[in-house]
């Protein structure tokens, strides 16, 4: 029988972020457990990116607390860590997949170096091993081995996004943040990427927090979801329950505005 007594990996309490007078997100609390995929959905401007950036230490919250369970089992307040500790966490334990691959890749070094660099950042020095691991990861994201020396500038949008995913997963993170990972891509390319992500997340048992305005992405990838509007959470729950039996007026509107998910 599954034991449900594990402690959460990430725990967010009363988190708010203001931009001057304007609300980015307000009084958000939730938890993410190991191996769990959480989707954050909501219309444009509802505060999804603000929230994601606050919980991944990319943006200082105005109020609230974010704690993370380290590999040694100890839960730490992210905003009480030193800058150096946070950087180490981002390099080793976390991944961050940006909507625009150019924000998460180095466009002027080779695909192999984009992946290898992250390994070097966690202390790997052996050139042969780095190259082997990079090749392995490129194949896992369906990039042919003979493209390893090409720069991402020469890649299509879908390939760039797959490369960004490889760069993030190569260090074996426990938690991956994704902001609209299938944004800006053609529908057929999206389907392939989603399928790939779904397989990787399952195989690696990753925890992930995925921001998306696409309910089909949430349906396919996530176990649980949070619906945001005007910076607040208006509904949360099991993904299929939220989509098939939405309770909040806004969620009903969101679900009814799309054809079928």
């Amino acid at each position, binding site marked *: *029988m*599954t034991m*449900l007594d594990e402690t959460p990996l990430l725990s967010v309490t009363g988190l708010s972020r203001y931009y001057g007078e304007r609300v980015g997100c307000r009084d958000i609390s939730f938890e993410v*457990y190991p191996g*769990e995929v959480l989707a954050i959905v909501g219309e444009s401007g509802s505060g999804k990116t603000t929230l994601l950036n606050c919980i991944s230490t990319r943006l200082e919250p105005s109020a609230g607390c974010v704690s993370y369970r380290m590999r040694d089992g100890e839960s730490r307040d992210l905003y009480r860590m030193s800058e150096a500790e946070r950087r180490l966490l981002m390099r080793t334990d976390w991944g961050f997949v940006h909507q625009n691959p150019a924000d998460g890749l180095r466009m002027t070094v080779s695909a192999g170096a984009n992946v290898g660099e992250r390994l070097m950042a966690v202390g790997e020095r052996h050139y042969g091993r780095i190259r082997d691991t990079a090749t392995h990861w490129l194949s896992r994201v369906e990039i042919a081995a003979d493209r390893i020396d090409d720069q991402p500038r020469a890649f299509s949008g879908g390939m760039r996004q797959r490369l960004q995913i490889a760069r993030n997963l190569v260090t074996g993170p426990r938690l991956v943040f994704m902001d609209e990972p299938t944004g800006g891509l053609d529908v057929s390319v999206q*389907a*392939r990427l*989603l*399928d790939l992500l*779904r397989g990787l997340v399952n195989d690696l048992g990753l925890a992930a927090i995925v921001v998306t305005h696409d309910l089909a992405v949430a349906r*396919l990838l996530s*176990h*649980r979801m949070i619906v945001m509007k005007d910076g607040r959470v208006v509904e949360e*729950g*099991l993904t*299929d*329950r939220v989509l*098939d*039996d939405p*309770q*909040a*007026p806004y969620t*009903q*509107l969101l679900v*009814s505005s799309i054809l079928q998910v």
Partner: protein
Amino acid sequence: MPDPVNRDAIAVRASSLSKSFCMHLQGGLELPVVEGASFEVRAGECVVLGGPSGAGKSSILKMLYGNYAASSGEILIRHGDAMVDLAAASPRLVLAIRRETLGYVSQFLRTVPRVAAVDVVAEPLVARGIDAGTARERAGLTLERLNLPQRLWQLPPATFSGGEQQRVNIARGFITDHPVLLLDEPTASLDAANRRVVIEMIAEKKAQGVAQIGIFHDEEVREAVADRIIDVRGFAPAHAA
């Protein structure tokens, strides 16, 4: 199956279960569909939900699966050694119950792009820690039994016919040894030969002590599998139109 089945053991107990939809886009219209549903299902029993179209049969099944939120009432399910209230369970607990205790064959298959039929069927086994090779082999055997042509196994079911998709769906639901199985018209789009296969599979589950709750419009299937029929008209809301 681990222990000899205790056929007196309650597997599912619904108490005063009600469902009402609040339609916010229609000015907050309340649509009561089920009121005060109470029933028990024991291990090894197959209980059929009966009643006319729109009576709330699927809604009850979806509440039992945690797919619809119950408006009030309790859904106790034997999960491991404990009876847990699914209606009040956290999303994580609902997922654990689905993984280990509660299977569901929905009326229609929801397809995932690019995943082969055989992997769709194998997935619940893989989720329970069985290695991919063994899981795929067992998936193949189940698909074979349901007469799904082997040339289709490696294709995603999105382009399959209604009956082919339904057989993938049935295989996926029946492949595990979940102690509770919910069946929403699993035979609706099947031919006579495949209907008989499903009747056999339901009988085998009964012999293994699985508690089954199903909806079957087909008279022949219902006669063949039902130990008891619960008429959901008995749970009609008092003020429903």
